């Protein structure tokens, strides 16, 4: 299994509070991604990173921000959580396209409930 951990694994928070989810990898992969998973929608990309301090928006980025200060860590922040952000959040990693077999490897997920 790819060395990807997510913390926390479960979190319940109140509307309006800030929340930060952490993704940590031990594979030294260049690319990191944050997705949310909701029934019927599959996985939708929130933000991704293509290197330290290099990030970009995905399909559903409103209300989320990210940071990557080290290769191994990718943080997802909900500045002011809303009930619509209740979801399961997955982190994924992928290697550079120069050496890649093109797939992404996924972490175990974080279940976030906003009350």
């Amino acid at each position: 299994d790819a060395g990807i951990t997510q913390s926390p694994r479960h979190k319940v928070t109140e509307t309006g509070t800030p929340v930060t989810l952490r993704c940590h990898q031990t594979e030294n992969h260049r690319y990191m991604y944050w997705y949310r998973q909701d029934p019927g929608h599959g996985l939708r990309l929130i933000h991704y990173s293509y290197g330290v301090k290099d990030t970009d928006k995905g399909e559903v980025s409103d209300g989320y921000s990210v940071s990557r200060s080290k290769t191994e860590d990718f943080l997802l922040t909900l500045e002011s959580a809303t009930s619509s952000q209740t979801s399961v959040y997955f982190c994924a990693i992928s290697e550079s396209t120069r050496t890649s077999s093109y797939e992404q490897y996924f972490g175990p997920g974080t279940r976030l409930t906003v009350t």
Partner: protein
Amino acid sequence: AQSVTQLDSQVPVFEEAPVELRCNYSSSVSVYLFWYVQYPNQGLQLLLKYLSGSTLVKGINGFEAEFNKSQTSFHLRKPSVHISDTAEYFCAVSRRGNAGNMLTFGGGTRLMVKP
């Protein structure tokens, strides 16, 4: 932009019966194709991928998929399912040559294997 449609949200099947999970995609450029499996309360795991070459791709756990360019399909099949195959299955597409190995996912198909 790409899109992926998984035609069935749920597929019930009896143990030892064959199964096909359907996936169609749309893209104006050549693509790579993937099937991922998600067991309950876990992250996604790669089942198989099509990058080039033979259109019949074999993956783990006895699954296979066939790439059909003319029909823009990548259906997943297994000749005889087991109870342990009960899971959610996601089809995903990646545009060839895209930096960052970006994936677009379908909405998922829940395979329910009954004894």
